[in-house]
């Protein structure tokens, strides 16, 4: 379903993603793990047509997203790391806007919006502005929206960041159920090892822009001789903190972008 070959992204001097290749099968739940700044989000952005790769090939359901952009876009849904809802519109209007952008016929749209809003327990609040929603409700709405056009692939970039355990639990239950029912391929990134352990069929560990290991949770544990995924993760990526390095390169990248814009 997703095929990536020798994908590379370079920002000026800094290489965020170094020559990665992997494959995700149809109906699979595939998790991307890695410390901050490992290149997970950059990879997702390239897969979802938001960032042009420096080199390499991507195929989503057989379509190269940089050649057959619209076909590829129609086939995936995405929940971004940070919210992407329109706060000034109601939950229902956000769903409807999405439905129209994704060419869903009127009758299907109405039915499916109701079905998904009920599933994610937002139906009662459908006519409230999104700006009045809590973080968890916004997340649920975004995931419901991501499923609206029955995508073949759903990208989830740290979907549970900042959610309480109840919301996290419920969210993964729904994602798993929809994965089984609608055969949606799910590509996710997370920092919570227990989540990856619980929902993902296969896991790739990314560090410094490269994939250091790929396999099932059991395979990763066996390979590193550890008894938990967290242990395996630390064995693969080391215990040193990345926050500092990552955030300063982020800041530099942002500064470089600003500067380029103003030039």
């Amino acid at each position: 379903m997703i095929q990536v070959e020798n994908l590379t992204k370079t920002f000026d001097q800094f290489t965020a993603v170094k020559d990665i290749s992997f494959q995700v099968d149809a109906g699979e739940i595939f998790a991307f793990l890695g410390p901050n700044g490992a290149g997970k989000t950059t990879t997702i952005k390239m897969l979802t047509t938001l960032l042009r790769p420096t080199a390499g090939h991507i195929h989503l359901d057989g379509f190269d997203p940089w050649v057959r952009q619209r076909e590829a876009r129609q086939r995936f849904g995405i929940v971004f790391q940070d919210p992407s809802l329109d706060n000034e519109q109601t939950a229902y209007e956000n769903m409807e806007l999405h439905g129209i952008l994704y060419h869903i016929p009127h009758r299907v749209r109405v039915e499916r919006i109701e079905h998904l809003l009920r599933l994610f327990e937002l139906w009662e609040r459908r006519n409230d502005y999104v700006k009045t929603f809590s973080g968890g409700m916004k997340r649920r709405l975004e995931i419901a929206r991501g499923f609206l056009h029955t995508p073949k692939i759903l990208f989830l970039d740290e979907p549970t960041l900042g959610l309480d355990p109840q919301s996290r639990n419920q969210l993964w239950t729904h994602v798993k159920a929809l994965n089984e029912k609608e055969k949606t391929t799910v590509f996710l990134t997370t920092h919570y090892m227990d989540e990856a352990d619980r929902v993902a069929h296969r896991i790739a560990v990314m560090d410094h822009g490269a994939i250091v290991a790929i396999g099932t949770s059991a395979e990763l544990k066996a390979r590193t001789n550890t008894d938990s995924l967290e242990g395996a993760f630390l064995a693969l990526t080391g215990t040193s903190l990345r926050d500092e390095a990552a955030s300063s390169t982020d800041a530099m990248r942002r500064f470089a972008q600003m500067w380029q814009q103003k030039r």
Partner: protein
Amino acid sequence: MGAIYIMWLREVKRYFRSKAQIIVSLGQPTLYLLALGFGFGPVFAKAGAGNYLQFMAPGVIGMTVLFSSIFSGMAMLWDRQFGFLKETLVAPVPRLHIILGRTLGGATVASLQGLLMLIVCLIAGFRPVQAHAAGTPGSHNWVAVPVALIFVALIAIVFAALGASVGSTIKDMQGFQMLMNFLVMPIFFLSGALYPLKNLPRVLSWITHADPLTYGIDGLRGVLIGSWQFNYGWQFNFMLDLCLLAALAAIFLTTSAWLFSRIEV
């Protein structure tokens, strides 16, 4: 087509939902109209130039449309900040449709604001009048109002598209502040909205002729007060203003579509 419509609808809904904003954004032009209109009135009259309120009312209508439309385009910055922009960037529709819907929505809102400002001007004592051969005030000319709306719409489209181009390019709020000072205010002050373009110092005259808003204001003023007022009505002529604005609208729309299609996040 669905994408253009839904993006247009979003802008219009947003406008009607913030009623306080509608009033607030009329405040500044109204202040200009009353303070300058009545404040400079006696001097203007003494200089033998006629009624200043009559002269500047089309200017503040243009100002209202300029501010409203250019900000609608720059609202893209807010969408970038709050994330909604990404939802439209990955949608399986040509980005041209997204930007067209947004821009037309912003232009619709700005035109409505212009219309409201025209009503404020009428309440303040402004009257559209007919041209008169002898150079004396003619009779009231209400037919001019719908014709003036053509220019309101053109100004709205030109600057909504300009705002969208800028909004697609800059990424942070500091940039926004800078543009406000170095783009929007000069466009307004150098447009002939507040003073006649006749007998200006040469350099200022060149600059005003390069300002797109000049032609919009000229069209509005020409249509609304004709040329009775000591030749302070038309500076150019109807066709020139119309064609120039239409051409600029096409250029800016194309530019904004191109810049928007290149956005990466």
